[in-house]
């Protein structure tokens, strides 16, 4: 299953991220996960949101440069070695991870690892064959990420 990541091109300076979060906040869009990679003068903000298409529209309208990209959100066990199991599998299959970030779904039980890989379709097949669960946009939107209320 395919998830959609929102990538935003932004200059590496104060106020750029603030603009993005302000627009998304106003549009009532929930950010599930975020990662930023930057070069010296510019960078890319990657986000998983509950409604990527609406988010793209809202950000585009404000003049931001956006790309909606297919990524794979893999459900892994939230315990030592949980991520390693997935990564070793990708390594065995010679799949390169271009970008990745994660968030906890259910503390000590489930986490989601978002990967952008060089061989998207093949990776999906391999994950399926190995019984690893992936989440699509809808599932991600519905997923209840971990929060402290559960304690």
């Amino acid at each position: 299953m395919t998830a959609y990541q929102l990538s935003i091109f932004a200059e590496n300076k104060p106020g750029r991220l603030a603009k993005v979060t302000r627009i998304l906040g106003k549009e009532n869009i929930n950010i599930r996960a975020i990662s930023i990679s930057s070069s010296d003068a510019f960078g890319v903000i990657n986000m998983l949101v509950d409604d990527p298409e609406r988010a793209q529209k809202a950000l585009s309208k404000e003049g931001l440069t956006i790309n909606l990209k297919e990524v794979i959100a893999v459900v892994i066990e939230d315990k030592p070695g949980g991520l390693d199991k997935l990564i070793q599998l990708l390594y065995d299959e010679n799949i390169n991870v271009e970008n990745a970030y994660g968030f906890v779904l259910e503390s000590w039980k489930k986490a989601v690892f978002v990967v952008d890989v060089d061989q998207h379709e093949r990776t999906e097949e391999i994950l399926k064959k190995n019984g690893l669960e992936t989440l699509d946009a809808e599932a991600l939107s519905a997923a209840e990420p971990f929060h402290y209320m559960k304690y």
Partner: protein
Amino acid sequence: MSIGGFVTMYWEKEIETMPREKLEALQLERLRKSVKNASASYHYKNLFEKIGFDTEKISSLEDIKKIPFTNKEDLRENWPYGFLAVSKDELVRMHSSSGTTGRATIIFHTQHDIDEWTNIVARSMYMTGMRRGDVFQNMMTYGLFTGGLGFHYGAEKVGALIIPAGSGNSKRQIQLMQDFETTAIHIIPSYALHLSTIFEELGVDPRKDTNLKIAFLGAEPHSEKTRQKIEDLYGVDAFNSYGLSEMNGPGVSFECQYKNGMHIWEDNYIVEVIDPDTLEAVPDGEEGELVLTTLLREGMPILRYRTKDLTRIIPGPCECGRTHRRIERIKGRTDDMLVLKGVNIFPIQIEKKLMDIEGVGTDYQIILERKDYNDHMIVKVEVHKEFFSGDLKQLEALRRTITEELKSDILITPRVELVEPKALPKSEGKAVRVIDNRED
């Protein structure tokens, strides 16, 4: 006449101190010859036919005004041989100008032309006090650029020992200066300032630890303050020079020991200063665009060339006794040409390159900065909205491509920054293309 113990000596006393009347008579005689010679070229032959200009009918220097101006575009349109007035086998060398879009402007020389050019460079260097026995370190690029070879041949004619160091490699430059007791250098002013910081790093004091006494500054307009700074830092007399490849290169005009304007060698060139808008001549003392005509170049004569450089004639005689008029240091350009590290760059060159690169948006901005006496160019480039794939690697690759493409054209490595579409400031709807933040 002496200044600081410097007695005025002339390379060619008769010509350098020739009474104006006689000098103008010599100019007229040479102008007639040069125009006649020029009419052998494809460009001038057609031009003279078109406007019905009779090359026999030049009775005074004023008659030069009957000849239309020559622009850089004319040189480009007639690339490469359209201005040649001799057969190709008479040519012994070519040079080119930096900072042109597309094809560089080429200037061809016969042996006679090289000899005459060398003579005025020698005359200029001699004027500043350089003599046989001096050690001259030429820190300019050798090659198509006229600054390197032009000075080289002039210095050789004077009889100095030349260290043809070329540009760059600062530590080796300093080593050469110390090892071979360099007394005169030819250097780009911004590089002279930068080099002083390397001296400092090495703990070498150019005032005490070298024998430097003369610096020829060229290839870049600079202020009086910069000159004084260089003189203070190095303990030298620094002389401003002006030249352009279309008029041979260095040696067109040069400062004498009084450092009050640059004598233009009027036995070699006819000098006009015009209002760039009306194209009418302005009186001596008034600022305008410098227009030059070659009087002695046989291979590729150029008549009434619009240099696009802004200056003025300094009225009145010079204390040195030379009768050739002086121009003030160059104030700027009538076009948007930039000079960075001695390299001439037109913003349009950068624009053309950028617009050929996939992923580049519509706007760009060129920012020039000076840090630690070092000039830098920053090029901000908008990324095309459709190009962005969400990948930082893709952006990095785009930046690398832009950097390399620009470097191959302008010979300077700019710092490229990618910016979001519409991020660049506009003034009154018009894009602000160049911001020059360089100060003395």
